[in-house]
């Protein structure tokens, strides 16, 4: 069942993927995020991060705040078409 609970729709990551990765020894949330690409899709973690952080906190005995402390938003806030940066007459 856990293999069918999708927690990250950008990268099709399931709850089972998260639990398995933690069980495999990934003991840092920033490494877990990179391993599964949580927050690396177009939504930048809007839906997956809170869930993944709670699962990670529960399994490792850490606090959710502590787990999320290394996460930083990166520009752009929403994906931007490359054509928007290529204007005629510009540089």
């Amino acid at each position, binding site marked *: 069942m856990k293999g069918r609970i999708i927690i990250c729709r950008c990268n099709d990551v399931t709850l089972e993927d998260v639990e398995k990765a933690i069980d*495999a*020894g*990934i003991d*840092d949330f*920033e*490494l877990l995020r*990179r*391993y599964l*690409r949580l927050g*690396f*899709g*177009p939504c*930048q973690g809007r839906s997956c991060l809170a869930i993944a952080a709670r699962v990670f906190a529960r399994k490792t005995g850490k606090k959710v705040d502590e787990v999320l402390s*290394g996460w*930083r938003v*990166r*520009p*752009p806030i929403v*994906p*931007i*078409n*490359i*054509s928007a*940066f*290529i204007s005629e007459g*510009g*540089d």
Partner: protein
Amino acid sequence: MRVLIVGAGVSGLFIAYELAMKGVREVVVVDKSYPGSGASLRNVACFRSSFTSPEHVLLMKESIKKWLELKDRLNLDIEQSGYLWVARKPETLDTFRKLVSFYHSYEIPAKILNVDEVKGLVPKINSKIISGAMFDPTAGKMGILKNFVKIYLETKKAGVKIIPYTEVKKLITSNDRVVSVETSRGVLEADVYVVAAAGDSKRLLEPLGVHLPIKDVPRHPMITEPYAADYRLGLLIDWDTPGSPHITQTVHGGFILARDLEDIPEASLYSPRSDAFKNIVKPLAELLPFLKHLKIVRYWMGYYDMTPDHHPIYGPVDQYMNLFIAAGFSGHGMMLAPVTGEVISSWIIEGKPSIPVAQNLTLERFKTGKLVRELAVIG
């Protein structure tokens, strides 16, 4: 023997891993943040041996061999899919011919491609604005995020103790030895100390009278949403545009675009430039017009820890018997990492590096003026 390594980036981890595999029982790696938080998880993850110094060529050839062995053993994402340096100007092909003959003298099968051959390799390229290209089929790319985590897990499995979120504040010395390190969470002691902390190595060693000529130069990569992988090439480089814009497609499908923009050394990693988008995207979209239809999903910054000759600083220092350096990779730390592990671990255990050419890369060279010259620093 107890070895303490400052910096849990890919260099520090490979050094730790090799030491553990060679029987050193107590290997500890400390990092001020999470493992890989510096350049290791910020780079565009491509590799090549087609450099223009014998030191780089020999070390990178060995490193590629090691990466490919690791690929099989740890199931890493690595593709030997080639580098393509595109010439816009016809006269650039003369430079490429000279480079190719240098590469051939080191048995790197680089070659010149005409416009049709380039189109065969990259069907979507705008062939009207190019004159040809140079291709190195032995270069390639890797999936950096997964690979790094796999290397991290393997290093832990080898018995290495990794202590993240612990900043080394000071190295304590007595005469010609380092005796301990003061961290944000207490004092740590070892018999041998390795500083593999990129630009922070300089700040850490300066009080000891060991001056590392390293400058952290910001780089500005960005990535698109994933697209169907019809583009197998490792890295494409726009040679004739200043800052050599370059582009690779990750295993995951996103295109990473980057260009060496003029920047202030040591600028914060969290000072993104709004002009980076246009400057990086524009020349690459001229070469690959389909890019116009893609979306940039993320832009981040990382440092090249540059030395004056763009080669790393390896090995022991004169003043301290039990201190080793592995820093200043100048943008090539990831591709060199397996060799860094081999070189530094053998230097510590046997007193000399198992790859002799590494001896040309000690800190000593900046005093004696025997710098190594590298003409092409890209990717």
